């Protein structure tokens, strides 16, 4: 590194070229006060407290904003500087309640208070919620201010209550960190400096509530605030935590690190920390505020046994004994297990091991079937490895991003930040989506195609690339195979035809192709919009074809990047919760693999791959499956054609549901087992970028609940299973590592230092940030010829509209966790059917009216939201709300390979509710 030397108060320190003077000062171990400085933000130079004297420089430059130069001589604490600092701090304190900061007795009263502080000269001692965390305290201590000789002004702003936090601008010192983090890091720009002069303040446009100002309640501003001006309400009187536990957010697949602040065995708040590998101090509203469910009064705290149609609390012994007795009757193919993408790797491993080794059934699946099964199938076919090819952190350096079928900023908000950062860095963003998303606002180009026409569009792009000679011939020739067949298949994708089928203007298709092919490195990012189709595998294959065609695989910031929706969907797949794969994608059909696991588990294993999720329900309804062990899933709401699912569950002879709440699905069970949440147990999650990260226990299990790993082991042991004597999940991981080549180098000891991205094949292997570097996992990248297949259910006279589904930022999945959070319910408390104004007008529907939606499978009620975000002919719903259970409508038609249902397209009719 290019280093320079700076002298700070007589000490020579070396810093990198381009460092600021403040960095040099910090490196020298010298403290100087700062208030507006924040390591994630561009230097602002506003608070004027980090001023220094630099020899041969005029005035008092701010250290934070002054670049260090070689040979610079810096003085940080001359009497003149301290005097100026004191005067500036006095000015700041003349508008901030400060008795507490300068009170001569504050040392004496410190032991007797939890958070006691004087709020104002005139009002004496009051509580300040930020005591102990307030940065102004630290600065006042350093400067040693004893009195403030200026007229004190209390600005008398009303305190503004927002969901989760309060804005009390009487405590604001206008450091601007909140504004800058909202703009620079979050790209939201919900707040700004307002007014001028002494009236200057932070606020929203026209002083509207944050909700109306584009705020997403990520609380980055709250975390950046040095005072209590922005203060979350949940813990405001609770004082400092007793301890802090670093763990992983339980929501989406991004894998943000969170720090749980714990006091008296309760979670006080979530501290995003700054050292999370993925999120680096940033969270979304759910991760930041969405953990109320842990302490929710509705948690299951005791096993329940249904007797005469009613649940009766039971002891663990009774419940486990009953389960062991009943399940003993259903060994073999009558048994199925559904594991959970919310559970840890260890737990998922144990569940599939239990199903296979103890119950002798490969009928093990989980919700990946609903989301990324097509990814697993397609990327395995094309590349030989079925995960995100690159890392989340590489997105920011991409020069081109093709975001297709992903509402990244809502569904994966922290990954969305990477996209925003890339755009800010000059990347060209091409968004392919029928709906107008926040991403579209950032996009260089937005292709609004008809839902279900992705193959046509992607193949169309490929054809333009080939025709215009923009393909990476070397890459195609040297690293791939089967190009000719693929090239042949492009003949069917004439540009005009593609434009007609997709509804995207031809020149936009050409422009998108040109950008993707010429701007390197280019990264494809996608999610459920690509996979939840009856041709989901084809969609992903089309994306893989495109990447190989342009050589955008096997290098940083490029690749094909599926974003997984659940915190551990990647891990659940990795450890074998799939009917056709053992841990590490070792095929059941492969005899060598089977032998390996039979040896390891000391048992005989069934030879045929098991049933997939939807097939399990079909088989249950058909009576072929009689017992189901269902962990942490709510298919009654999450799976398509929910009525069908409910009927299937009801027809089972024995259903065990293990969950943290009595979900819609659990209510159908014979026995319900209370599980512990992520906060109550140890384990690991693997995020969407293949990073295995530690989950750490922060509090004791609530009530009589138990970690899933413990429960599964207990059941397995009672059914005579061997190899379930684990006293801690770390032992389970050791077993996983011993049997899974890509996890071989992973152990809890190593994970203490941070997550590891698989493949991590040995004790010293550093993990892998991007795949297929030297060669593809399968050797050569495989081009697949494709043809366009329309979605299976098209709008017609009876059902003239097309329904597509997705997520809201403010809720998660079936709402089991998020709907326990009052603030999230304020932000998004009910289902809203998004409908284009043209359609709304034709149907006579007004904004906010109740409407009824019908499909061939069912009907639901919801409120209409008239918006051009939805294209004409298309309506949009989420699936978070049980009372508007969208999946009563959706089409269970499956992708023939991945068996993933076509959740993204079905035909519906809309009526005003009577």
């Amino acid at each position, binding site marked *: 590194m290019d280093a320079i030397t700076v002298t700070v108060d007589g000490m020579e320190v070396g810093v990198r070229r381009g460092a600021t003077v403040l960095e040099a000062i910090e490196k020298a171990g010298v403290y100087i006060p700062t208030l507006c400085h924040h390591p994630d933000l561009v230097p602002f*130079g506003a608070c004027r407290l980090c001023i220094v004297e630099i020899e041969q420089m005029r005035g008092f430059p701010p250290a934070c904003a002054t670049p260090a130069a070689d040979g610079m001589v810096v003085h940080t604490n001359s009497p003149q500087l301290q005097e100026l600092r004191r005067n500036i701090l006095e000015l700041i304190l003349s508008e901030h309640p400060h008795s507490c900061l300068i009170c001569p007795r504050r040392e004496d009263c410190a032991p007797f208070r939890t958070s006691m502080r004087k709020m104002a000269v005139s009002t004496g001692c009051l509580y300040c919620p930020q005591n102990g965390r307030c940065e102004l305290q630290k600065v006042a201590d350093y400067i040693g201010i004893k009195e403030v000789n200026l007229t004190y002004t209390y600005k008398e702003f009303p305190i503004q209550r927002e969901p989760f936090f309060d804005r009390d601008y009487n405590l604001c010192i206008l450091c601007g960190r909140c504004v800058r983090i909202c703009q620079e890091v979050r790209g939201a720009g919900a707040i700004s400096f307002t007014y001028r002069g*002494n*009236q200057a303040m932070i606020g929203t446009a026209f002083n509207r509530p944050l909700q109306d100002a584009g705020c997403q309640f990520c609380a980055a501003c709250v975390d950046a605030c040095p005072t209590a001006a922005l203060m979350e309400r949940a813990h405001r009187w609770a004082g400092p935590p007793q301890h802090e536990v670093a763990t992983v957010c339980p929501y989406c697949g991004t894998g943000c690190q969170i720090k749980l602040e714990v006091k008296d065995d309760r979670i006080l708040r979530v501290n995003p920390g700054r050292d999370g590998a993925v999120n680096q101090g940033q969270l979304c509203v759910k991760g930041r505020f969405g953990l109320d469910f842990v302490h929710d009064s509705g948690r299951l705290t005791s096993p329940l046994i249904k007797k005469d149609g009613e649940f009766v609390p039971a002891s663990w012994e009774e419940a486990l004994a009953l389960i062991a007795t009943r399940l003993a009757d259903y060994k073999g193919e009558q048994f199925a297990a559904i594991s959970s993408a919310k559970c840890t790797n260890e737990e998922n491993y144990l569940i599939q091991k239990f199903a296979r080794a103890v119950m002798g059934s490969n009928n093990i699946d989980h919700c990946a079937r609903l989301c990324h099964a097509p990814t697993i199938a397609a990327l395995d076919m094309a590349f030989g490895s079925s995960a995100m090819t690159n890392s989340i952190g590489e997105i920011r350096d991409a020069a081109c991003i093709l975001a297709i079928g992903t509402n990244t900023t809502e569904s994966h908000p922290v990954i969305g930040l990477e996209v925003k950062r890339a755009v800010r860095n000059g990347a060209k963003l091409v968004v392919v989506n029928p709906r107008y998303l926040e991403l579209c606002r950032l996009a260089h180009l937005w292709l609004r195609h008809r839902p279900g026409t992705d193959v046509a569009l992607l193949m169309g792009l490929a054809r333009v690339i080939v025709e215009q000679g923009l393909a990476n011939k070397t890459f195609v020739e040297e690293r791939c195979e089967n190009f000719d067949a693929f090239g042949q298949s492009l003949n069917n994708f004439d540009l005009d035809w593609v434009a007609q089928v997709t509804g995207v203007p031809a020149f936009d298709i050409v422009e998108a192709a040109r950008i993707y092919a010429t701007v390197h490195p280019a990264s494809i990012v996608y999610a459920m919009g690509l996979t939840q189709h009856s041709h989901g595998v084809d969609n992903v294959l089309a994306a893989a074809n495109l990447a190989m065609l342009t050589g955008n695989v096997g290098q940083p910031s490029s690749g094909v990047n599926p974003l997984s929706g659940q915190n551990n969907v990647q891990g659940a797949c990795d450890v074998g919760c799939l009917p056709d794969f053992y841990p590490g994608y070792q095929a059941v059909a492969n005899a060598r693999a089977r032998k390996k696991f039979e040896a390891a588990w000391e048992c005989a294993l069934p030879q045929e791959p098991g049933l997939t999720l939807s097939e399990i329900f079909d088989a249950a309804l058909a009576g072929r499956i009689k017992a189901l062990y269902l962990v942490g899933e709510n298919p009654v709401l999450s799976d398509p054609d929910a009525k069908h699912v409910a009927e299937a569950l009801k027809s089972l002879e024995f259903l065990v549901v293990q969950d943290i709440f009595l979900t819609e699905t659990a209510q159908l069970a014979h026995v319900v087992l209370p599980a512990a949440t992520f906060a109550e147990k140890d384990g690991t999650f693997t995020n969407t970028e293949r990073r295995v990260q530690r989950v750490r226990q922060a509090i004791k299990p609530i009530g009589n609940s138990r970690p899933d790993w413990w429960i599964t082991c207990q059941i397995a042991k009672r059914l005579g299973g061997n190899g379930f004597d684990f006293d801690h999940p770390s032992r389970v991981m050791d077993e996983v590592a011993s049997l899974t080549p890509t996890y071989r180098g992973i152990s809890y000891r190593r994970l203490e230092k941070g997550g590891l991205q698989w493949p991590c094949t040995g004790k010293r292997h550093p993990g892998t940030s991007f795949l297929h570097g030297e060669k593809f996992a399968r050797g050569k990248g495989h081009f697949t010829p494709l043809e366009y297949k329309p979605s299976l259910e098209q709008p017609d006279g009876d059902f003239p509209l097309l329904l597509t589904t997705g997520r809201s930022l403010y809720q998660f999945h079936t709402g089991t966790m998020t709907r326990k959070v009052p603030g999230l319910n304020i932000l998004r408390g009910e289902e809203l059917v998004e409908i284009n104004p043209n359609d709304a007008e034709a149907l006579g529907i007004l904004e906010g009216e109740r409407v009824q939606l019908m499909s061939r499978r069912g009907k639901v009620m919801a409120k209409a939201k008239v918006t051009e975000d939805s294209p004409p002919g298309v309506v949009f719903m989420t699936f978070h709300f049980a009372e508007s259970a969208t999946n009563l409508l959706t089409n269970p038609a499956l992708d023939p390979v991945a068996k993933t249902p076509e959740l993204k397209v079905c035909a519906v009719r809309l009526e005003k509710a009577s």
Partner: protein
Amino acid sequence: MTFDEIQSRAIAEWEALADSEKPRVLVGAATCGRSAGALAVLEAINAELAKHGIDAIVTQVGCLGLCYAEPLVDIIKQGQPRICYSSVAPEIAPQLVEDYIVNGNPRPDLALGTIGDGGVDGIPRLFDLPMLKPQVRIVLRNCGHIDPENINHYIANGGYIGLTKALKMSPEEVIAEIKKSGLRGRGGAGFPTGLKWEFCRKSPGREKYLICNADEGDPGAFMDRSVLEGDPHSVLEGMLIAAYAIGATQGYVYCRAEYPLALERLDIALRRMAEYGLLGQNILGSGFNFDIKIKEGAGAFVCGEETALMASIEGRRGMPRPRPPFPAQSGLWGKPTNINNVETLANIPVIMDKGADWYSSYGTEGSKGTKTFALAGKAKRTGLIEVPMGMTLRQVIYDIGGGVVDDKRFKAVQTGGPSGGCLPAELLDLPIDYEVLTKAGSIMGSGGMIVADEDTCIVDLAKFFLSFTQAESCGKCPPCRVGAKQMLDVLEGITRGEGQPGDIERLLGLAETVRDGSLCALGGTAPNPVLTTIRYFRDEYEAHIKRKHCPAVVCKELVIAPCRHTCPAGIDVPRYVRFIGEGKFAEALAVIRERIPFPSICGHVCIHPCETKCRRAQLDEAIAIRALKRFAAEQGGQFWRSGTTVAPPSHKRVAIVGSGPAGLTAAYYLAELGHTVTVFEALREPGGMMRAGIPEYRLPRAVIDREIEEIADFGVEIRTNVSIGSADELFEQGFDAVFLAIGAHRGIKLGIEGEDSPRVMDCISFLKNVNLGNGVEVGGRVGIIGGGNSAIDASRSALRLGAKEVTIIYRRTRAEMPASEEEIEEALHEGVQIQFLTAPIKIKEDGVLSLECIRMKLGAVDASGRQRPEPIEGSEFSLDFDTVIAAIGQRPDVPPQMGVEVNRGNVIRVDPDTLATDREGVFAGGDAVSGPASIIEAIAAGRQAAISIDKYLGGNGIIDEVLAPPEEEMALPEVEEEERHRIQMPCLSLGERAKSFAEVELGFDEEMAIEEAKRCLRCDLELR
């Protein structure tokens, strides 16, 4: 089209215009003209022309800079010079058309001047007029002459030649030329332009930006607006040259949206440029590409700061950011950017055309070329001017600006707008130069220049500028956002009368924090007006803080009523005037008596500062307050006595030396406080200057006697014919305290040859001899040298002593004469002659007294704010007199044995707040401390002395009395809109005055007094 073709076409058009047989009318219709009604004038002209069926060419032009004379209309008839008419109202415009265009009468009565060859009888040449002659117009070269919307006019006048020359040079050569010219940034900071370009040129990067900063935001500044409205192409051509030099491909004009006309004209100009290939790709076939966009600003002052301006163009809130990186390295959108001000850019084409050497021949060593200023405030001729650097402020304000409106006293000039400083009269001779102004605590700034006169409160002025910068702070950094507000709060406290000791130091401390701690220049310079006003006008701050007094009578919380505020003794004038109006004369006198023991004397001869600031004067004439006071004193009887009290004896003895108004006032109050008071008077009768200095025809002796007797009634012992040589003798006599109120009785010598003649007297001795009845003879011709009230008294006394010809010789004009206007009026009325602008050189006694004189002319303004008289060589002449009286002032005669320290002018040095001398127990006041002043000021000093002495003797110093009953609550009366002049004082006829010292003013009768009192507007009620 090549440039040559464009140019010849433009010249042809211009020449055709000049040679046109049609009459041409130019209307100054820039924003300043429009606000004066130019568009209505334009309409009237067009209508009149149509009425006469005249086919004339009517053109809207920019501003000539003579904003005070707007609307301006110029008429050109073939073969005649262009005639410029000023202040053309819509009613006058048709007359001009008819008289001049139709009938050939050029109406010299309405004309301001001619422009161009030839002349017109009775009309001066415009550019020979004093406001234009000293100007050098480079930036404003075309303003007011060309049609700003016609690019051909610009080209025909040399436009775009600079560009063609630049395009033939290398960019480096262009930069070298600009460096050589010495041009510095006209936006305010004065950074060398060529150097700035060079930084940007050398900064690596393919894309570079050029920004023209037209975000002119200072209150009172309109230079940039005028240039953009009057000659937009000069700026745009400057931008092309700058862009070529630095290698920019995109330019922006950042102009505030409040300048709609400038924006419109810029837009038109850009479109014409594009049509001529002067914009866009391959400009004039040179391969140089450049485009310009207009960006409208929202009127934030801070957006004049470069980094805030760039943020604003980028669509962000205009907030400055720290530098480095400098815009030249990383500016707009992170690309190297050069920002120049409008005026800077308007200079560029001329420099390229005429060369750096030509340009740098103007100006000073460090500041080359010219500078435009928006001359505003209390100057007579406000407007937009352009002068070579190095011209003094005085030349700008007096020669070009014509001095102060209504010939009031000049107080200060604010240069550089709200970020600049406020400079006093002493600094008027500073040359206009970046470094010189900075050294004086101000800045050049972008060229705002605001003149303040004596009616401007300096604290209020500082408050005004600071409230502007404070309100315009972007709010980013605490020193500016909070510090400026804290300073403003202190200033507001001071102007509200809540000033505290230490406020000035608090302001200075805060100013330092704001200046040193702020991120950008807005904060860095915001304290300048406060710092400079404290530096140059500290006493005015102190008057506000210590005495709650606003000398300019502006701060309305301090000034309940101007009359009361200006009264040194603080008499509640409106209250007693109201009592008189109600017929309650005793109560009226009691009100006066609450503050002074000499109501009648003051009623006769007070210099009445109260009347000078009377608000009624703004309507018609001031209330005759003095005359009303006299009336109250005459008619008020003894009612006031019932409220007076005398404290029990304190057994302390006070000696008062001198029985003038100061001494006797102190004696009166000290006696009331129970002290034993003895007054020592050197003359044979008490009264000091009241008796010895003021002639009987103004102040009858009986009035003096009566009021002194009333003081004696309170137990004051007055010993006359006693000279006190030293304070020691008094202390030896057992006095506990001494008050020296010895007046200023020694006349000042003329200092010229021959003044020792016995027929040359000093004025005070003369008056003393007359007033004390010592018998004086003056002869037939009396010459009196001086212009004060004493000179007038001497002149009128001399007339009464039988002089046939009395001549006052004064070196300045009547406007500067310190004597009171009504006294001068009376003297002239009685036949006194005054030789103005005349100074004596020597006196020869050759049978007659021959006074050799020289004529004077008024030159530069001195520290007193008046123009200094300078002798005119060779204008000597002689006047013959029998007696010459030197009335050029007096000074105190302080015996050295008194043992008190004296200042220059032999005045006693005291603590201004307590009047204590450097000697324990010795106080001093009146003329002995202030030099010759007025009775009312002496009374005020006597009051102050009584307070201090009482405190010194262990009392509480409270001398306030309540003698009049409280007023009933009253509603605010309707303001009388109608003009009603003051009641004239009845006087003796001229015939009766001659040879008699009988009182000239006869006093009001009851009816007159009540009527006059009712004229009072009672502004105290409004402001209470």
